[in-house]
């Protein structure tokens, strides 16, 4: 059960749960619950992005000498997701269920295909190439504050 992929992939599942709980609450008009769930979701995503952007991606880039490649695509998708987080936050603030549903649906597709690319490819590559560093990398990712 060790390895970078097995360490990072469960973050995706955890965030999915908060995502659906927030969406369900927003569609029911239970705005406080929606906000609470969304905040869990956002914190989880930001934490996960930080682990990747400050530890995993630089390690991958260093060992492959590949910048402007896959990690660049991942970073760009993180930026696109952050934009949608803002849209969702705004929709929550203005209690606009339609705007929330639209932003959430857009995020869902972006996020799921992003996770798929990471789990099917990037994490596997990292597991192959960063075997020796993996324990140290995980320790560093664990040290990042929520």
């Amino acid at each position, binding site marked *: 059960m060790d390895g970078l992929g097995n360490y990072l992939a469960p973050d995706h599942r955890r965030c999915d749960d908060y995502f659906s709980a927030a969406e*369900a609450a927003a569609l029911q008009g239970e705005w406080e619950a929606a906000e609470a769930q969304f905040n869990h979701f956002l914190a989880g995503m930001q934490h996960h992005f930080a682990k990747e952007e400050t530890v995993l991606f630089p390690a991958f880039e260093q060992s492959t000498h590949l910048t402007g490649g896959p990690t660049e695509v991942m970073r760009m998708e993180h930026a696109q997701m952050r934009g949608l987080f803002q849209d969702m936050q705004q929709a929550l603030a203005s209690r606009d269920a339609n705007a929330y549903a639209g932003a959430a649906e857009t995020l869902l597709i972006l996020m799921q295909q992003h996770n798929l690319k990471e789990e099917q490819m990037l994490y596997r590559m990292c597991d192959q190439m960063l075997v020796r560093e993996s324990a140290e990398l995980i320790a560093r990712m664990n040290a990042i504050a929520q």
Partner: protein
Amino acid sequence: MALAGLSLEQAPPLSVPLRFFLTAPLFAFLAALLLLFSGPTALASRWSPALLAATHLLTLGFITMSMMATLLQMLPVLAGAAVKQPRLVAWLVHVPLSAGTLLLASGLAAGWKIGMLASLPLLAWAMLTFILVAAYSLARTEARNATINAMRLALGALAITALLGLTLAAILAGHAALPALKLTDLHAAWGLLGWVGVLIIGVAYQVVPMFQMTPAYATRITAWLAPWFFIMLLIWSITVWWAEDNAKWVALTGLAPGLIGFALATLSLQRKRRRRAPDITSQFWRMGMASLLAASGIWLVAQFSPALSAAAFYPLWLGMLWIVGFAMSVINGMLYKIVPFLVWLHLQSRRPARGAIPNTKEIIPDKMARRQLRAHGAALALLLCAAVLPNPLVYMAAAVWCVSCALLAWNVFSAYRLYHRLAA
């Protein structure tokens, strides 16, 4: 390296995938229109010229057209294998596939031998180009998963289907003498069960859990189902050719349980979904799975009921449930995820300053998609009734079906138009 496919510059322009998704609904509309104008005679038997033509407007023009584009979209995500020269590939596949399908359908509908013959090189070219391009990507990827395996098998099935189809067309045009009836059965089975069925099964492994956050399909399903199904199809084909009386036992024990198991597994995953928000794509998928169950069930009953298997409506029901109920529903649902997302993604990269970019539900509103879902469901139900009582129900069925296809075409086109307005 597999991951080299994941780079920024390689995203092809929106027109590359979208031309397929824009054309596909038009072919479905043509099929519905053909039925409307042919009237009850179209449903007289599975061999009626109008029905054979409509079948290919759907299987080649709608289903194969959109499945090819979906596959080309999914390869980079799943396999890290971006297609090289996407614009060129799109031209080399889309134009001959469209022209070839139109010619083949006209040839079949009107008994026009020259049209049929002229369609052959075009279709052969489109198939060959697509198969080579996709096979090249699939052969090079280091990613291993059940979907990629299913895609490989589906591609093999498409090659077999195309070869058999080309042979059949040559026979009909009077240029080959072979047992056409058996070949037609094989051709239809490889097309519908192999290419369409196996690809949908493989794609389902990814998209069913993705959009509704269901649990994943059990690995004992994903590891075995597509290869099992493909091998059974091979054994079944050999049996049909040399020992036809025994073929039904292969289908009974090998093919039908696989299909029923897949449909039940999918429905039960959907029941365990963590995402509760209503989702139109998933409703289309449920309609698709219900049709798949109905088709398999009717087929099973017919094996033991001579009355049913001799009924004129029986083969029509199988075809309608499989093509319109199963394949078209599933693909139709997928279009409502893929098209708005592609438009959003391309707007995003055209206009990095955010704010004015509509989200996917503003690109194709749920209200419009739901309306089309209802029309599609009504069309399917009416088509099944029309198979039993063609006169006068075929007119109603075809008219509602025309409306459904036109709404789909309109929804996809509106998304494209929005892109042009905002990207300009």
